[in-house]
């Protein structure tokens, strides 16, 4: 798809339905689509969500707000521990947690976007995180079979976009955003700056517009 100009955050997050799986970019709060998360918190009733994000925010910040509302049923992440409230919610049986090694988490999202049906990694073999997973010796090294991750909606943040939805990420705010943009049925991009078409150098585009369905201007944080 192609964005074709910006819409409001409320309009964009209205695409998220109860029960949906939602990917959210960012490493902690850096590179997180904070305007979209706020709109989801304040202007959407969607609940029973599965959130795919490296962390489940911080206490009362980012996805931590949505967690406090009790609207997250399941988290798929590599590091829940950065939000003690997420850990507490898991212990209280209010949040289902699926933990993946960070590289496997990233690769699974890429695989989801790239049409890869499954992939083998040596990471995690012989550990708790491989329990119940298929393993296979490849060149005498135990490998774990991992499955792709996909979502109904992805929320990503980019420093710059053009009006078609081409995206450019700044410094370490890139992290999981370009991957998640590829792995959802609907990708909503929040951009710090929205340029006219041609405003990004063609070689510098990091997420081509075919991945972006809606474009929202970032609200000053």
């Amino acid at each position, binding site marked *: 798809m192609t964005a074709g100009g910006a819409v409001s955050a409320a309009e964009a997050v209205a695409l998220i339905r109860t029960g949906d799986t939602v990917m959210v970019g960012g490493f902690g709060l850096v590179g997180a689509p904070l305007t979209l998360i706020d709109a989801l918190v304040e202007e959407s009733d969607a609940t029973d969500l599965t959130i795919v994000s490296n962390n489940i925010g911080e206490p009362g910040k980012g996805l931590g707000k949505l967690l406090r509302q009790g609207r997250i049923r399941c988290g798929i992440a590599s590091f829940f521990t950065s939000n003690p409230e997420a850990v507490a919610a898991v212990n209280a049986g209010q949040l289902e947690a699926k933990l993946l090694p960070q590289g496997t988490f990233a690769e699974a999202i890429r695989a*989801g976007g790239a*049409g890869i049906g499954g992939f083998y990694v040596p990471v995690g073999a012989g550990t708790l995180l491989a329990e119940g997973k298929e393993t296979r010796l490849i060149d005498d090294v135990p490998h774990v079979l991992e499955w792709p991750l996909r979502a109904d909606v992805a929320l990503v943040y980019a420093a710059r976009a*053009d009006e078609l939805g081409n995206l450019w990420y700044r410094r370490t705010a890139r992290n999981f955003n370009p991957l998640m943009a*590829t792995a959802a049925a609907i990708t909503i991009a929040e951009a710090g700056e929205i340029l006219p078409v041609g405003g990004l150098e063609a070689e510098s585009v990091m997420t*081509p517009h*075919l991945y972006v369905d809606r474009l929202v201007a970032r609200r000053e944080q």
Partner: protein
Amino acid sequence: MSSDPRQRIAARAAQELRPGEIVNLGIGIPNLIPGLLAPAAGVFIHTENGLLGVGPRPRDEELDPDLIDAAKRPVTALLGASYFDSADSFAMIRGGHIDVAVLGALQVSALGDIANWAVPGKDVLGVGGAMDLVVGARRVIVTMTATASNGEPKVVPECTYPLTARAAVDVIVTELSVFRLRGGALCLTELLDGVTLDQVRQATSAPFRVELEA
């Protein structure tokens, strides 16, 4: 309408494309489509060697040795275009992010199986992106003449040439007609100007339903 069957096919196939769609065009007839699209068609052309936003053929002074399409012909890039590597390009294809692939075929079966990369008895030494495209694109439109140069129908009960993929084709456009695969069944949905149903029956060995649209 052009009397050149290839132009007729390309022109009809072009009508299948909708504004905003991401389209990958194969070598041959599909490559005639850009010349037939209105500038306002709003279609974005993807080429699997790493460009979204293919523009018209370059004028001499625009020629750039670093800018080609998958047919290895010089192209231009439109404003808003982007470049990417081959893994990312095929991630787009395999991952279902290309709306339409338009490509040629040697045979298409009544079940939508397609054979478009190899001839039996000859070496199978070139496949390129054909298999990725027919599996990955959301809609696969085949553009081909109804019959081979020896008169053999190309829409067949079952492919006898090496398969590219099973049940992959959505639409077949020939110089005679349009077929659509509906619920796994081959349906004739349109006769091109001046073509009769009998002509299509003669040129087609596959069984098909007739579901002509107004």
